[in-house]
Each structure stands twice: as C-alpha cells, then as structure tokens.
C-alpha cells in the first residue's frame, strides 16, 4: 500500500512519519511516536479512551486517519504535566480518586482539559454533560466530576493549591 508523509506537532514537538493512508491516528501516536497514553477501548468511536486534542478540540483518534490531520497541532495526556509537576486536572483526579483502573483516564483528562479551557467557570452540570462523551466503566463519574470541578476552580482562581480534603 502506498505510504504518505504526515507531519504532526504533538505536545509541541514536530515529527514526520510515513504511514499507510488507512493507519489510524491512535496507532501512529502509540506505535510510531511511542505515546501510549491514548488508549483503544472500542475502535468504533464510542468510548472516548482514545481522545486527544486536535488544534484545541477533542477528537476520537481511533476513527481519525493520520493522513487527515497532516499539519495539525495534537495534544495528548503526555503533554499535560510540566515535568515533575502535575497539571491541576491530573492532581485533582488523584486527590478526588477520579480514576480506578486508569484506562479511560487519559481520554477523560483531555476531554476535561478542553472543557475547562473553553469555559473556565464551567458548572457541575456542564461538566457532567461534557464528560458524557467519554465512558468510564469504573468510577460512575461522580469523583471525576468532583475532580474536574475542583481543577476548574483552581485554574480559574490561578491557585496551585489542591482544593480540599477528601471525603
């Protein structure tokens, strides 16, 4: 099969890969770029474990061909933390136990990132509705919602402190 050159900027770093036109973005991220944070839960666009940001908007990388995103700016979970320092979303997911098995977590974090970046004063109801795009089989979403709301409040106020004690 003919191969195509695709240039992607992933978490600020630009790479060019040579891929078959049928190769999925999630496979390019995982196999060609060594970024295994985007997971494959269903491969048919429903679960959201493969969620990454393309030019700031969340997409399903399992139903996106890499050739479709040539030239795009992609953000993945690996780009969230600043070295040793976790992003407020990651920190609040940890504090509020917004994860159990962790498999939905990278996709959920990227979707949450989009939500809080688009609307810093997002309400709890809007968070719930927003993350309904992504399935989590472990948590029942309540502590994820807690975490996203706490992170949004923290990012909004510019504070680096964890928001509160645990239940």
């Amino acid at each position: 099969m003919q191969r195509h050159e695709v240039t992607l900027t992933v978490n600020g770093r630009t790479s060019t890969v040579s891929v078959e036109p049928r190769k999925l973005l999630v496979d390019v991220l995982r196999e060609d770029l060594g970024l295994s944070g985007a997971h494959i839960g269903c491969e048919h666009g429903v679960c959201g474990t493969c969620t990454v940001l393309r030019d700031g908007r969340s997409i399903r990388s399992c139903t996106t061909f890499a050739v479709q995103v040539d030239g795009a700016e992609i953000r993945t979970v690996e780009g969230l933390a600043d070295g040793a320092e976790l992003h407020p979303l990651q920190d609040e997911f940890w504090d509020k136990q917004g994860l159990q098995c962790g498999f939905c977590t990278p996709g959920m974090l990227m979707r949450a990132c989009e939500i809080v970046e688009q609307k810093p004063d997002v309400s709890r109801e809007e968070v719930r509705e927003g993350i309904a795009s992504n399935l989590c089989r472990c948590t029942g979403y309540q502590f994820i919602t807690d975490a996203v709301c706490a992170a949004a409040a923290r990012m909004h106020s510019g504070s680096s402190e964890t928001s509160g004690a645990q239940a």
Partner: protein
Amino acid sequence: MTTTDRPAAPPVRTHKEDRTWVGRSIRRVEDPKFLRGRGGYIGDMTVPGMLYAAVLRSPHAHAVIAGIDVVEALAAPGVHAVITGEQAAELCDPLPDFGPNPAAHTWRCLAVDKVRYVGEGVAVVVADSRYLAEDALALIEVEYEPLPAVVDPERALEDGAPLVHDDLGSNCAYERTFDFGDVERDFAEADVIVTDRLRWHRSGGQPLETVGAVADFDHATGALTVHTNSLSFTSYLFMVAGTMKIPANKLDIRPVPAGGSFGSKLFATKPAVIAGMCSRQVGRPVQYLEDRVDNMSNCDHHGSDRVYDVRLAVMRDGTIRGVDIDTVEDYGAYIQFGVGHHGNALAQVVGPYAMTSVRYRVRAALTNKNQQGAYRGFGSEVNNWMLEQMVDKAARELDLDPVELRRRNFIREFPHFIPTGNVYDSGDYDAVLDKALELSEYKRWRIEQAKAREEGRCIGIGLITAQERSVFSATEFWFWFDEPGAPVTSMPESVTLKVDATGGITATLYSCAFWGNSPETMVAQLVAEEFDCDPHDVSIVYQGSKNGLPATGPGGSRTTVMLAGAVEGATAKIKAKALRAAAHLLEANPDDLEWVDGGYQVKGVPEQRKSLADIAVMLHLFKHSFPEDMESGLEDSKVFDHPYTTMPSADRTDLGVFYPFMGHACHVPVVEVDLETGSVSFLAYAAVHDCGTLVNPRSLAGHIVGGTAQGIGTALYEEFVYDDDGQLLTSSFLDYLIPSAMEVPELRIAHHETPSPYTLHGIKGGGEGGRMMAPAAINVAVNDALAHLGVRVTELPITPDRLRAAIRAAESARGRE
C-alpha cells in the same frame, strides 16, 4: 448437621482503636503513572520481534465446519502463520474447565468440527502487524453447514431441541435440588405463599480494556513467558501449562495492570493460550489482544442469564419462613466455572432475613451463545434482586410497609448460621437501615411521591436491604457433587516484606494484580499502620508466577482481607527479629522493650531507642555484631490461608462455611418513570454500606458509585441480545449501552462499620457491593412508581420497550375490568 458439631470458628479478635492509616482516605499510590498515560497495560507492551495475532470469528450461531481454506491467507503480505481449530487441537489440549463434565462439553481455544455461537474463533493469523493479520483473516475461506440454533434456555431443556454438544446427549449440563431446613413444614404452615416468575437477562463486565497477552516461547529452554492482564494467574498456571502441554515449571506468567475487570478478566486463559500457541509455532513473541467485538462476542465472560420461579412462605404478620427457588440458567455454549454462580448465591440466599428453610433447584442449560464467566457479584447479585422482588411483592400482598416488613425479619444475633450452612460473621442491619432512611430523606420522598401522583407523575422509591458476601472458599464450586474427592481448599495469599538497610520497606505481592482496585494503596496503608511510616514511602512489587509464593488471586472480594492477613503475619516475623536485634543493640531484655513510633525503645526510657532504620542497617551490614544464629537482612514472608472455611456435610443438607465475612447494604434510589416513553430517570440515590472496618473510605465509596453505575446498566440498559437465530445484535458499544455521566446520578453515600470478629482490624471485602444492590433497588423503585397502575416489571433490563409493553398490558387489563 446440627450446630453443636460444627467445626470451631476462628478465635474472636480484639481490634486496635487508635489507627493511624487504616481508615484514612489517602491518595492512591498506584495513580501517578495512570495520570501520566504511562499505565503499562498489555497493549502498551512491545518486545523486539513481536508479531500480532488476530482471530477469525464465526458468523453462525451453530454450524458444522465442513472445510477451511487458508492458502490465500498464508500467502498474504506479512503473514507468518495461520492456525485452524483442527491444528490448534493438535497443538493444545482443551482449556481449563471446571464444568460438570468437560469430556462431554469440551472447550478449546478455537472451534473444531463445529461452531457453537456467533463469535467463536475458528482460526488465528499471525502477522507483522494487526492490520496485516486482519487483512489475512478476510482471505480465509470457511465452509459452514448451518444447523438450527437453540437460544432460549427453557426451550433448550425440552426434548428435541438442537444439541449444542452431541456428546452430552442433552442441553442440560447440570441439575440438582438442595433442601435446607424443613421446607415442607414452613410452606405448609405459611399463611401466604407469594409466587413469581422473574427473568434476568445477560449483561457483562465490559471493562474498557479488553483481554490480551504477550507470549514468548523459547525453543532453547522450552520455557513459555506470558505477560497478561488476566487475573488469578497463580491459580490457573498449572492448568494453562497442561493446556499448552508444557511442564508447569516452564511457564512464567507475569501480570501487567488491567484496565478494569469486574470479574471478566478472572481466569481469562484463552488469550494467553492463543498467544502462547502462536509464539511456539512461529518462534517469536506474539501479542494477542482482543478487539471490542472479540471481547463482546467471545470473551467467555458474559454474566448471569436466569429464569426464576420462586415461592416465598410468609406469615400474616410479615414473618418470612422460607423460600423455594427454581432457576434455569442459560450458560451459553460452554460452562467453564460449573454452577459456582449458584454456590455464590447460596452463601447469602436468605439475604439479611432470619428465615429457616430454603429449597434451591438449579438447571444449567447450554445454548448457542458465548459462555458465562464472572461479573461483579458472580450470581449472588441476581439472588439479591430475586429475593428483594419477592419481599417487596410480599409487602404488597400483605399490605404491610415494605420497610417494616424487612426490619421485622432482620437477623440480629451473630455469628449466625443460615439454613445453607454458611455463616454471617457480624452485622447491624437496623443501624444501616436507620442511616439509609435518614440519608435518603425517605419520609420526605414519600410525601413528594404522593404530591407528584396528584399531578399524574410517577415517582417510585426503591428501598432494599441486601447482603454482600466476601472472601470465598472454593467449596462453592464443588459441593454440588457428592464425590468431589477434595477437602476444603486453603486458597492462600502471600506477602513478602523487606526492610532495606535504610529502613525503607518493599512489599511483594503474589497473584494480586491491579485491575482498578488498589492493592498497592491498601497494602501500603496496612504496612504503614504496622511500621508507622508514610504509605507513599512503601514500595510495591508484583511478582510473576515464577519464584512466586502460594497465592490464589482476586475473586469474591477476598483481596483486602487476605492481604491484610498476610501483611500482619509477615510484620510479626519481621518485628520479632527486629525486637531481638534491638534488644541486643540496647543490651536490654526484649521483654523490657516496646514498639513506639517506628522503633523499639526501653519502656519508660524513650531516649534508649533504636529506630527501624538503625536496626535494619545493623542487620544488613554488621551481622557479626549479633548472635550466631541471626542471619543478615530483614525480610520475611507470610503465606496466609483462608481463615474460616469448613467442609460441607456428606448429605449436603449443610454446605459448611464458605463465605464467612458478610457485608450488608441498603440502597434507596428515587426514580421517575415517563409513562409515554417508558424511560426511567433518577431523582435521588442514597447508599449505605457496611463492609466492616474501612481501609480507604474514598476508595470504597468509589467502588460503590462505580458498581452502582454498572448496576444501573444492568437494570436499565445493558443486554447481550441474541435473536432467535442466535445472532448477537449488541456487539458494539453502539448498541450495548454502558451508562454515561448523564445516566448515572449523584450518589449520597454513607458507611457503617461493624467489624468482623475474625479478621485483622475487622476488615471485610467490599468491592462488589454497588452492583449487588442497584439492580434490585431500581427494579423495586420502578415497580413502586407504577404499582398504582397495576404495573409490575419482572424482567431486567427495564428497557423502554419492555416498560412500555408492561404499561400497555396493564392499561388493557384495566380496560377489560
């Protein structure tokens, strides 16, 4: 057997009051890697030279395989091997199977001669990439001769039904009736006998990560190394070695984190066997990782699928005397765990109620569907649902308050032996109920309900009280047979604790892999409690099966209790050595020393003290400072065996103790039913659980919410639907509907703590509770919303079409009146 000749219970323990770490909601020590997208799941693993396998699935529910042509597939680009079912049967023996008669319903990694369900594997391709492997699958030509399929479990048991396994001669894999207590008398003396027919359709764990394995067979040594996310690997190791026809000491299974399990990755041996078989064939490492359709159609872990005919013997004052259960279970095409799911139900078959007799008849039907495995609750959640529907119906028929009827029947003295012989170690059901009534604002909702009804709105409140067994014993799998030829299994769990020269502690776990629970955090908290350190400073290692200590693995909410026992035992050994070392260093009598804040000191003279680090460095580097018989280092292990399990009686009128640590919960969902659309939405949801002493309350709360979300799926949305021809209509997340954040309400959660008298700190298992309660509670709530219209739903999931059908039926029944 009478109570007097029961084997003695373990000694009753006293629990320490002032705990530092046990009982605190700390951040989980597992989480940072997952938050950074570096979980290290099986799909993340690459090995130099690794190839990829893909399995060709049957499109037919039941068909003879008349021929398979793989010539074109073998010639396809990047293909290294194609193995058909017939070839696989030469390479491997049947898969590990605890079914009643494996010789007559033989289960293999790929189908031979005929396929028995849609999705059953018929051939596997190994290629350079998964893409190329799937390309080659499309080139395999299989000639099928379709046979009539049998899909309904009751029809499967009728004469003349198509046979799933010809060798078995029928589709009934197992049948037995047990009587416990005086069933005849209880039913003869009952004022009212409440009867019902109930239907629970199949759903499944469906973790977001599928099952997979990376296998590497070394022809030089004959050793097979398998990395897998399938749990309980120390239990199935011997059996998988048998399947692979290699000595058990040549098989090393190594765990990687599992992206969810909920039972469905317990004992999932097929992917490991397929990967192992392929690797041995091609001489290179091979990954086999199910895709979602593989998993939904071919995972061997669909959940329970039952028809019930039930009778409840009740007195006019509400006293429940006994229950008579007749159930047909649809096991699908194979029956790998036998009827262990019903053993599970028998552990808590009477719920929290003090009834005196039980009749239990089970028939296991084989049909043309993917087989059953484990799903959170393992069959006891279905029993909870059945019993609570019956109790609720009894309250309506006797015109008694459903809360008071439940309370009237509560067991109040512990330990309590239920008619089947299992013990409930402790509990306080009144306290849980009181807390739930308050938390749920039950009274207020009853007023709201009445108001809403005046407006024509249908609000329902679904209070249920039910059990949550923990720490199973394998007797539940074999007491079905009169001559199983086995004594009680000890089902150990092990921990090694190592104190390094700086006083740092590493705990090694055997067989207890991670799947979304928190074995690392839990063990770290328990270690921290013993050694007065910070749990985040404890290092955790997961050992593979090679060099492993005896271990069983998770299942039946056993991990926390069993690992706590092992940690306690290993700690005692280490502290004994540390005490002796400290006494030697302080030139004091060991009896004069006490453990205080991470070290030993002379009683009343705190300045005369050696910290754990002081002791450890001496023991590691300066052994010659100690008596001759002390060895270097500070490391020890404990193999902790099941603390309380006893033999069944020979006549099986008493099944012995097999699930002793009994949790309890009360769930109170408030729902509103839309009569026009048949949809159900939540107005509120409260849950109170008692799983003994809590280790990490926030983690348990997370499991309660998550389990409840799954229970909502079971109650309202999720179903593996097979049509009359055995086609699986729900083979993707587009039609198998997992609840999203919009379907799951905010839960109010409270814990009650009744310690177990028999375990460290009084801990009981608690990971399955949400799903064990929610389906029962939601069904009761829906019926409560619609009772005034004469609607009673007896089938799960309560999909809009089922609910509309029930509403229509009631309407036309009213019209006829």
